[in-house]
């Protein structure tokens, strides 16, 4: 796994995979895809990085503490976004009713709170899948 060609190729491709994942997350409201798929893509880019460069390198990029925080507060973020409606005096998870500017339909910012919620969910999914991969690979035989 310490292959030169593999490492060079990965260093070229992985950043694009990562950015593509972020793209899928953020465009969840206007095009196919969404936070879950995007989150998995982001997570997979980290998994590919750690299989190619070694688990230790991957761990150095994403320490366990960071993963724990993103994992639980990514979900909490969803709930907080839901509370926005509640604070404005309209039902939980309300979007347009809560007075959020929805923007022009079809553009990136047309989802109101949805891209924000998606960002939290995407981060959570990515960190969960990476955590699982690390726990599987680090468990002694």
């Amino acid at each position, binding site marked *: 796994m310490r292959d030169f060609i593999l490492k060079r190729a990965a260093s070229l491709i992985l950043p694009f995979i990562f950015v593509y994942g972020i793209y899928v997350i953020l465009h969840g409201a*206007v*095009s*196919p895809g*969404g936070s*879950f798929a995007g989150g*998995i893509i982001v997570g997979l880019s980290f998994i590919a990085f750690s299989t190619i460069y070694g688990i230790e390198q991957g761990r150095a990029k994403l320490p366990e503490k960071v993963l724990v925080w993103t994992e639980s507060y990514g979900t909490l973020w969803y709930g907080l976004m839901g509370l926005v409606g509640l604070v404005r005096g309209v039902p939980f998870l309300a979007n347009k009713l809560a007075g959020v500017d929805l923007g022009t*339909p*079809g553009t990136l910012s047309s989802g109101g709170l949805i891209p924000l919620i998606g960002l939290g969910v995407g981060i959570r999914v990515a960190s*969960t*899948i990476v955590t*699982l991969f690390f*726990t*599987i690979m680090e*468990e002694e*035989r």
Partner: protein
Amino acid sequence: MSGLLTKVLINYPYLVAVLLFTIGTFTVLTHPNLFKKLLGINIMESAIFLMFVASGNIRGGVAPIRGTTNAEAVYINPLPSALMLTGIVVSVSVTAFALALIMRLYKAYGTTDLRRIAARRKEVISDDHLDQG
């Protein structure tokens, strides 16, 4: 061709869904290997998803995405596919959790075969109570 057969052949996605569900359930219930059981669960769940999505699909319809379709297009019902998105999330989490359990079982028993696990159960566990392993 008889009426029933025509109906079945027109609705072939449901037929495939039933077939896949049967295969998946059979794998889950009869295969002794934990991994194969997990694969069976995935097959089973995607069969249900297939049934749901087929129920929302219309022949010649298009997905209701803004900006990609013309005005007179027939839209399919997007609700079942949106629901099945949640279904896929659930099935992924089930798979992930089961994988973690498989790792633990392999660490304890040194095998992923249920028959061998049953055979080794006696050696691995002493009859002691609060038994941290």
